[in-house]
């Protein structure tokens, strides 16, 4: 097949597959079957388009083909049932096909937005393991192949396929219906959906370098899903909060790795390389989250913190006092050792290193963070800023020993070396990028 044809088929698939799967899932009531029918339609396109040419309306073509496959599947199932029931009252096949076809037409024409929303909620159903939720979401909503999912998660294609099969089996075994959660369960289920999207984003964002385009592409996929969800659930602040957080984090992509692929800390990033369009979109999404006059949650708070950095054209312009107070609220709604660590950094910047060390000590004394490499790096930084270079260097050494990320290790080792060399003065380097 020519590359151009394959690319055209893939492009149409990317644009249409989620709607196709969602429509088919409502008609068949079975997400697994819907996904297979949609895949079969894709395979048919890949077989027929190279010789017959790309149809004038490729999206409509895929829909029609999937519909025909659904009718066939439905008919087989009915014939099978009839045989089981040994009912002899036969109907002419084409009448049945027409009838089903009309029902499918009606179903596919309506509620496209609702169907997509159902698809998002079903793929991220809490009955599934986290990895299955992620794999099913990438497959059904992003149109990724099992091979691409494998590449993105650094697992074999067979493993990725197994996750999807397991997900479909679990949905069938637990009789999970293809429907929206009832209002009482909505908040929990939405949290699960947001978690899946943010997990996908972070998988791409924390990838060490761009050696494989699939991993950075996960960030774009998660962002796209977030934007889609925000359009469908516009009254939930946390949806906009998550979108804002991802837009602002993604805006730093070009600045957060150095020439040799090493991570560049937030304070050291060349802010001219930040993506202004994404920052603008992120700030707008944050404003939508805050303007809903409903209680905000951890995503919106983290976005508000990210926004403080995004608004500062120079690192020294950062509103650390506001960041420190946002961390107090975040620690309240979403208590975690890492939040405390970040709060220690913010307090250290806003009120001086001694105040930051006090927050850090309190967290460490609670038994948290003991062997967490970044905790040692933060302590090293706070100590360096209070003039205690010797002890600071030791903590950077310890951080370098503990981290499993080669890029981070390089940064920590360099800091330790700089601190050991008396003529080099250390700057302010809070962690996080």
């Amino acid at each position, binding site marked *: 097949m020519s590359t151009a044809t394959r690319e*055209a088929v893939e492009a149409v698939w990317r*644009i249409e597959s989620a709607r196709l799967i969602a429509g088919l899932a409502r008609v068949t009531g079975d997400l697994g079957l819907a996904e297979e029918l949609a895949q079969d339609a894709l395979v048919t396109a890949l077989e027929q388009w190279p010789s017959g040419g790309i149809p004038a309306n490729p999206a409509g073509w895929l829909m029609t083909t999937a519909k025909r496959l659904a009718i066939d599947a439905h008919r087989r199932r009915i014939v099978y049932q009839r045989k089981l029931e040994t009912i002899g009252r036969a109907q002419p096949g084409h009448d049945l096909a027409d009838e089903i076809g009309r029902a499918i037409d009606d179903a596919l024409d309506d509620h496209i*937005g609702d169907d997509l929303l159902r698809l998002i909620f079903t793929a991220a159903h809490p009955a599934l393991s986290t990895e299955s939720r992620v794999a099913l979401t990438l497959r059904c909503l992003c149109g990724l192949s099992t091979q691409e999912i494998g590449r993105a998660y650094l697992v074999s294609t067979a493993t990725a396929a197994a996750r999807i099969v397991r997900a479909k089996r679990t949905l069938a075994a637990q009789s999970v219906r293809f429907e929206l959660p009832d209002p009482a369960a909505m908040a929990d289920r939405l949290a699960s959906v947001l978690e899946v999207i943010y997990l996908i984003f972070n998988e791409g964002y924390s990838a060490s370098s761009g050696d494989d385009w699939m991993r*950075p592409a996960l960030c774009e996929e998660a*962002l*796209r899903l977030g934007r889609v969800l925000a359009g469908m659930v516009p009254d939930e602040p946390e949806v906009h909060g998550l979108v804002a957080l991802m837009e602002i984090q993604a805006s730093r992509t*070009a600045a957060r*790795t150095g020439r040799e692929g090493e991570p560049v800390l937030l304070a050291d990033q060349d802010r001219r390389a930040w993506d202004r369009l994404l920052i603008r979109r992120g700030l707008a999404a944050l404003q939508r989250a805050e303007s809903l006059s409903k209680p905000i949650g951890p995503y919106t708070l983290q976005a508000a913190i990210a926004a403080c950095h995004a608004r500062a054209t120079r690192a020294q312009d950062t509103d650390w006092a506001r960041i420190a107070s946002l961390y107090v609220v975040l620690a309240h709604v979403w208590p975690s050792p890492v939040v405390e660590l970040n709060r220690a950094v913010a307090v250290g910047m806003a009120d001086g290193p001694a105040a930051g060390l006090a927050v850090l000590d309190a967290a460490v004394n609670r038994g948290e963070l003991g062997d967490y490499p970044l905790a040692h790096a933060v302590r090293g930084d706070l100590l360096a800023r209070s003039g205690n270079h010797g002890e600071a260097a030791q903590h950077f050494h310890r951080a370098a020993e503990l981290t499993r990320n080669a890029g981070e290790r390089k940064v920590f080792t360099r800091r330790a070396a700089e601190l050991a060399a008396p003529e080099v003065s250390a700057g302010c380097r809070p962690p996080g990028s």
Partner: protein
Amino acid sequence: MRYLVLLTGTQPGTPPPPELMEAIMNLGAEATAAGVLLDTAGLMPRAGSARVQVAGGQLSVTDGPFAEAKEFISYALYQVRSQAEAVEWSTRFMQLHADRWPGWSGQADVVKVMGPEDFGPPA
């Protein structure tokens, strides 16, 4: 990956049919809901534009209109995974014109915006 689509064309002398404008709005809403359309806007006719140019080391400013028959009409910025996908959205957009505005001719140039992926993996 981002693609900038720049639409240029020649007006046939009739105003754009309302059903074309409606279809364009619908397609834009669809692409926005799909999370791929980052930004789009129409552009004023070039009669009201200006050109700042450097030639032979000399800087000059010229006010429009310019001699070219084609006008810039609009731009759209997409975030998609391949050029083929940006082409597919643009094809749908152009098909709306072909179906609804007899006599119109124009072109949509699909240009990749340089991104981090174009700078190659770190050494």
